[in-house]
């Protein structure tokens, strides 16, 4: 074999490895691939655990947070906050710091922790903001960079070594409620899409390499939409960016931010749960004072209320987002009810109260699905594992008894591992691991 052939082989192998490194992240954003809440088909995390069983590692975090971990190859990223609203005595918003933490997936070793001082003004730690704090937006990654949305402090991009690449301010307003920032960014081709309804009554697309604004859609009626938008494939191969605002669902052109269609939803007041899309249908839930769930076929033009609204239901969730799988929509509501609806008709299949959950709003995290199981993490009563089937079967209730802080973050899943965050620790749950 001559040196040229060897060089070609080495180059080919090198390119293959490079593409592997830059491959699709396993759990790239809030609620995983395209916000579906569904792990890869080969994922099969443990269904039972405790402080002494199936906990591969547990790492103290620099502060609390309601965001979800994300996973890219051997790295796990998570956001936290510290300095204010975390029990720090006598501190004001000027002491608030957000953290983006990178950990080694298999060991839990903290590779780096970037802290970012809050830009003022910041909302006071009071009222409903105490429900979730200052690190509620889950970051998003393309496998090479990670993008964190820190509310009024802006959107920041980092490389995988923790170097800040850019930072963009997307507004410093507050809604009339002052509930703080919550929507998570998503990626669409070469842009980072941010629902900055709370910060600037706008939705923006930022160039993911430079942070430069590609488009910005600004309308007052975005106020009180805390929704992470979702990309939905419509008939004819078109992709729409679906978003819910109080009273309506919108389908935007993801390349321009222009409105393609809208539908009245009856979900008014505020909308917190994120949308979920499957088979060209977008499902929204939430609202106040009454909650509702609605299914809308994406696509069309203008007002599609009469043509594209498939059904609506009173079975709903105020904060946690649903998953849709094999013809059924599964909701674990903030009040602790496991709900299954027929995705095609909205017909209620079951509604069961999860046992032992206490308090008015025992669930803040969203349900996720892997290996045919629903994982629903409650704030204080552990993670419930329910069969993802139209018959309600509770398989397990897994508590980590030595952690008395709130579990507000939605779990992330890859392969055999499930990552769970509390206000104090990040856990890696894996079958066969010790305590």
């Amino acid at each position, binding site marked *: 074999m001559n040196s040229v052939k060897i060089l070609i082989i080495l180059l080919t192998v090198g390119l293959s490895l490079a593409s592997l490194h830059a491959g699709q992240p396993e759990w790239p954003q809030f609620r995983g691939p395209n916000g579906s809440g569904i792990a890869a088909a080969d994922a099969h995390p443990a269904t039972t655990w405790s402080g002494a069983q199936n906990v591969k590692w547990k790492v103290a975090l620099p502060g609390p947070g309601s965001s979800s971990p994300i996973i890219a190859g051997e790295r796990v990223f998570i956001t936290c906050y510290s300095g204010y609203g975390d029990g720090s005595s006598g501190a004001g918003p000027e002491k608030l710091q957000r953290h983006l933490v990178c950990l080694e997936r298999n060991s839990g070793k903290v590779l780096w922790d970037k802290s970012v001082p809050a830009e003022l003004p910041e909302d006071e730690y*009071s*009222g*409903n903001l*105490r*429900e979730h704090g200052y690190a509620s937006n889950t970051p998003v990654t393309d496998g090479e960079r990670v993008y964190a949305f820190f509310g009024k402090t802006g959107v920041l991009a980092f490389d995988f070594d923790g170097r800040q690449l850019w930072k963009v301010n997307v507004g410093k307003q507050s*809604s*009339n*409620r002052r*509930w703080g920032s919550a929507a998570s960014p998503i990626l669409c081709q070469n842009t980072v899409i941010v629902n900055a309804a709370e910060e600037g009554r706008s*939705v923006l697309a930022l160039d993911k390499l430079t942070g430069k604004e590609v488009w910005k*859609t600004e*309308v*007052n*009626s975005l*106020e*009180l939409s805390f929704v992470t938008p979702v990309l939905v494939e419509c008939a004819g191969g078109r992709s729409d960016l679906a978003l819910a*605002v*109080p*009273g*309506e669902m*919108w389908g*935007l*052109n993801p390349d321009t*931010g*222009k*409105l*393609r269609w*809208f539908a*009245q*939803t*009856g*979900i*008014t*007041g*505020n909308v917190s749960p994120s949308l979920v899309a499957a088979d060209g249908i977008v499902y929204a839930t939430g*609202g*106040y*004072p*009454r*909650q*509702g*769930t*609605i299914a809308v076929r994406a696509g069309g*033009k*203008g007002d599609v209320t009469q043509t594209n*609204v*498939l*059904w*609506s*239901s*009173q*079975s*709903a969730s*105020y904060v946690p987002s649903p998953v849709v799988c094999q013809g059924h929509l599964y909701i674990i509501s903030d009040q602790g009810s496991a709900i299954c609806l027929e995705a095609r*008709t*909205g*017909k*209620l299949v079951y509604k069961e109260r999860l046992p032992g959950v206490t308090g*008015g*709003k025992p669930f803040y995290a969203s349900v996720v699905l892997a290996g045919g199981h629903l994982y629903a993490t409650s704030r204080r009563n552990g993670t419930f594992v329910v069969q993802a089937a139209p018959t309600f079967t509770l398989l397990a209730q897994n508590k980590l008894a030595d952690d008395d802080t709130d579990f507000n973050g939605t779990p992330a899943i890859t392969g055999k591992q499930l990552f769970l965050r509390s206000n104090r620790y990040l856990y890696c749950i894996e079958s066969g691991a010790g305590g």
Partner: protein
Amino acid sequence: MKKSVIILALALGASTLSLTAQDQGGAPSAGERPSIREGGRGGPGGPGGRGGFHLLPPRAQEQLNLTSDQQKQLAALEVEVKAKIEKILTPEQLKQLQQMRPPPPQGGMGRGRPGGAGGGQGGPGAESSPQRPAQEQ
């Protein structure tokens, strides 16, 4: 003098027409938006309860606690001004005016109770048609 009264009335009418429309949007009848119920879609919208031309929005009239004599005078003035407007505008403009949608709510959606510490959720928002992004052509 009579001319200036009419001009004033027209100005008032123009400024309160939108308020009146917003009133109707903010307090729609039960059928004006899809109901949230099991398995089905809401029915068609019902008619608004307080439509028509008003120099003062119905809600303001209620709050001002007008006497019956004042109500009669206001109603007469409304008839007069409406007739004048119909003479000023072209049929096409009148049609446009009748088809105009209520303006979007300004200054935020929510008007309800503020969230309480550690549990309150705030009140319901205004339920008129929200302002929307620019429509794709």
